[in-house]
């Protein structure tokens, strides 16, 4: 018997079966399984994404500046730029002077007096820092 003759006598029917109704709910089962695997995805509007990204950048930059200022402002007198100087003598002149003289910062409301030598040290320091001396001197002479 040739191969062709043999296979002509053999059935081509599918001898396997499935449980009744197996295919009826198969799609639902597959989709249910896929749904469980999937994590919810939040879709953002394109403009909202830009705003969110810009907000993140602004936050990071602001935080960086804030931390830098915190470090630069401690001690107060080490700041050399004009803004820091203004901040120092307008808001906390006592602390400024104490730091220049390496003194302990007096408690709020306590009076502090300077000798001529101390005043020269302060002036010398402020000159090095490009801080307007006339204004400082005016404030000190008022005490």
């Amino acid at each position, binding site marked *: 018997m040739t*191969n062709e003759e*043999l296979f002509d006598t053999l059935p081509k029917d599918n001898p396997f079966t499935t449980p009744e109704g197996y*295919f009826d709910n*198969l799609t639902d089962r*597959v989709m249910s*399984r896929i749904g469980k695997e999937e994590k919810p995805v939040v879709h953002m509007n394109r403009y909202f994404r830009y705003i969110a990204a810009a907000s993140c950048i602004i936050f990071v930059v602001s935080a960086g500046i804030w931390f830098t200022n915190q470090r630069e402002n401690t001690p107060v007198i080490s700041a050399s730029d004009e803004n820091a100087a203004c901040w120092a003598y307008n808001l906390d002149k006592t602390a400024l002077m104490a730091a220049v003289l390496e003194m302990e910062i007096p408690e709020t409301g306590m009076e502090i007096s300077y000798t001529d030598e101390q005043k020269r040290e302060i002036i010398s320091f402020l000159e090095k820092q490009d801080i307007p001396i006339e204004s400082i001197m005016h404030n000190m002479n008022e005490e």
Partner: protein
Amino acid sequence: MSEHSDEHLLEMFRDENRKYKGFSAIVEQYKVRLYWHIRKIVVVHEDADDVLQNTFEKAWKGLSGFRQESALSTWLYRIATNEAVSFLNQKRQKGFAHLDNPDSVLLATLQDDAYFSGDQIQLQLQKAILNLPDKQRIVFNMKYFDEMKYEEMSAILNTSVGALKASYHHAVSRIKIYLESVSI
């Protein structure tokens, strides 16, 4: 139910609002033929069900990257075939088969299978098929039962048409020898 074109199914899937619906339509369209393709490889219904679910899960994860270099059906058949063969290899490695006859479990399952309704001749034919190496078995099933063209098989199995014809020829010869030995 009428069949959707690959283009239509993929268009639905790629639309975020219709992604689930699109994939559901793909499952609906291909579930039966993929099931039978897998079932003929792994034999047992419960195993075929597991492998089919894994196949669709892989398809779901990979479909976004599908570049349509082949037909959708070819791509799905390829996943199904790989999954089924991997499943069988794992089953063999776990020791579910005897060393002298790797598919003895499959053969035994066939005889006791509640979901096998073939007569004696069909049982012997299936036993003969199960005695073939995996590749020959897959090629024989696709050609003999599914009447698939060699070109399509070549795309699915990533094998040349010439090699597939040779595999089919060897399979036929071995089945004939087996059937003659059991006096069919």
